C-alpha cells in the first residue's frame, strides 16, 4: 500500500509536502536571480526598491562580456560538431564490433565523466603549458571535447543498441552500398540519440568552468570564466543579468528538446 497513492492516507500529505518544499528549494533560487537582475538595488536587496534594465545595459556595454560569450559559443559549437562526429564513428565501432576488450574500451571512453574534473584540468594545464596550447581556442576545444565525448558516445551507443541492424542489412540487400545504408537508413533511425549527443556536448562545453579557469588567458576566456572572475571580486547584479541569460538559454534548450521529442514520437 506504500506504493499506492490513494492508500497512503495522511502519509500522502507528508510526501507531497516534502516534494513541494524540495521543488521550491530547487526552483526559487533560479527565479530569485532572474528577479534580482531587474532590481534597482546594487546591493541585491530583495524585494528590490524598484525595477531597472541597468544591469543588462552594463552587461551589453562591456565588450569583455560579449567577447567571452562569443568565445564560449564558438568553442561549444566546434566541440558539438566534433563530439557528434567522433561519437558516431566510435559508437558504430563499439556497438557493431566483436573484438577483445570491447567492454574495457567502452569503460575507458566513459572515464572522463567519472574522474574529478580538477585532476584533468590540472593535468591538461601542465601538458598544454609545454606544447603551447594554453589560452588558445584549440586548447579549449580539445579539453572540452575530452569532457563532452563520453556523453556523446553514451547517447549514440544506446540509440544504436536499440536499432535493429537487420533493417540496415535489408537496405544493403536492396542494392544500397553499406555506407549509403548507414547514411539513409540508420542515421535517421538513431537521430534522437544524435540529437541528445549534440545537446549534451553543447551544454558540457558551454557550462564548463573548471578546465576553462586553467585554460583561460587574459585575452581569451569563456563566459563561465568571466562569471567566475567577476564573482571572486564582488556579487554585482551584472552577474545576475548574465546568469539570467544563461538560465534563459537552458529553458530554451529544454523546450527545444521537448518539442523534438514530441516530434519524433508522432
Amino acid at each position, binding site marked *: 500500500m506504500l506504493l499506492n497513492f490513494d492508500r497512503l492516507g495522511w502519509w500522502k500529505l507528508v510526501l507531497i509536502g516534502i*516534494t513541494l518544499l524540495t521543488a521550491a528549494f530547487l526552483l526559487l533560487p533560479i527565479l530569485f536571480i532572474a528577479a534580482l537582475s531587474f532590481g534597482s538595488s546594487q546591493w541585491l536587496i530583495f524585494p528590490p526598491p524598484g525595477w531597472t534594465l541597468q544591469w543588462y545595459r552594463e552587461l551589453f556595454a562591456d565588450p569583455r562580456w560579449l567577447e567571452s560569450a562569443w568565445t564560449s559559443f564558438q568553442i561549444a559549437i566546434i566541440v558539438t560538431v566534433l563530439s557528434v562526429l567522433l561519437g558516431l564513428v*566510435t559508437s558504430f565501432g563499439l556497438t557493431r564490433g566483436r573484438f577483445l576488450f570491447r567492454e574495457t574500451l567502452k569503460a*575507458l571512453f566513459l572515464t572522463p565523466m567519472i574522474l574529478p574534473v580538477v585532476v584533468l584540468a*590540472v*593535468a591538461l594545464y601542465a601538458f598544454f603549458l609545454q606544447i603551447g596550447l594554453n589560452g588558445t581556442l584549440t586548447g579549449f576545444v580539445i579539453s572540452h571535447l575530452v569532457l563532452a565525448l563520453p556523453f556523446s558516445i553514451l547517447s549514440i551507443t544506446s540509440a544504436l543498441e536499440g536499432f535493429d541492424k537487420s533493417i540496415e542489412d535489408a537496405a544493403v540487400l536492396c542494392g544500397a552500398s553499406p555506407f549509403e545504408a548507414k547514411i539513409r537508413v540508420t542515421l535517421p533511425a538513431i537521430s534522437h540519440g544524435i540529437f541528445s549527443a549534440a545537446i549534451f556536448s553543447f551544454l558540457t562545453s558551454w557550462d564548463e568552468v573548471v578546465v576553462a579557469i586553467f585554460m583561460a588567458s587574459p585575452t581569451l576566456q569563456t563566459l563561465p570564466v568571466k562569471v567566475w572572475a567577476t564573482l571572486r571580486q564582488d556579487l554585482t547584479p551584472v552577474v545576475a543579468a548574465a546568469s539570467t541569460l544563461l538560465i534563459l538559454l537552458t529553458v530554451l534548450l*529544454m523546450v527545444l528538446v521537448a518539442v523534438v521529442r514530441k516530434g519524433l514520437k508522432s
Partner: protein
Amino acid sequence: MLSRTDAKAAGSNVPARRLTLTDFDLTLPALGLLVLFFVVPVAILLARSVSEPVPGLGNYAELLGSSTYLRIFANTFLVSGLVTFVSLLIGFPVAWALAVMPSRFASVVFAILLLSMWTNLLARTYAWMVLLQRTGVVNKLLIGLGLIDKPLPLVNNLTGVTIGMTYIMLPFIILPLYGVIRKIDPAILQAAALCGANRWQSLVRVLLPLAMPGMAAGALMVFVMSLGYFVTPALLGGTANMMLAELIAQFVQSLVNWGMGGAAALVLLVVTLALYAVQLRFFGTDRMGGR
C-alpha cells in the same frame, strides 16, 4: 587494424579484399584523442608527484604528515558525507512521492529537477552566495520570523558549502532512486499489508530494504562527485574549510608546486577510483557524471 590485401590471400583462391576498416579501427580516432589528451597528461602529472622537486615520495610524506593537509582531507570527507546524508534524507521521500504520484504532478516536479540540473552551475552557486549573505533573504526571513536576533554566518563556512552542494546533488540522488522505487512490485507491499504489517512496518521492513541497493548506489555516487567538486566549495566555503580540489588548484596555480599538486591529485584519484570500484562491484554500471 587495417586488414590489407596480403600476398597469401592474393595467391589463394580467396578473393582479394579491399582496404577495409574493421569496427575496432572506428574507435581509433577517439582512442587517440583520449590517450593523448587524457591518459598521457594525467600520467605525466602523477609522475611529477614522485620526481619534483627531488625524486622520491617526499611529496606524499609532506601531504600525509602535515596537520594542515590532513585537516583538508578530513574536511573534504566531512562535507561530502554531510551532503550525501542530507541529499539522501530529502531525496528518498521525494523519489518515493514521484514514483507513486499521479503523472501530472510528477511531470511538473521532473521539469523542475531537470531545469535545476541543466542550469549553469555558476548561476546556481551565485544565487546561494546572494541568498545566504549577512543581509541576504534567508537571514532576513529568519529574523522576520523571530527565530534569530542577528544575522547568522551562513556563507564562507561549512553551512554554506553544505547548502550549496546539497542543492546541486539533489537531482543526482532523486533520479536514480526514483528509478529503483519505480521498479519495486507494489504487490510485495500489498502482501506485507495482507500479512498485517502497518505502514511503519512496511516502510522499515519492506520498502527501505528493497530500495537499499539504489540508495547505497546513489549515495556513493553523490559522495564521489562531492569529493572532487571545485567551484561550489571554492565560492561558498571559507578559507578555514578548504576542500581537496581547491588544494590541488592552489598548489598548481598560486604555489606552482607541481610535485605537491600531482600528489594531491593522486590521492583524490585513488579515493575516487576505489569508491568507483566498490560501486561497480556491488551496484553495476549505472551512474552519471558531474563536476
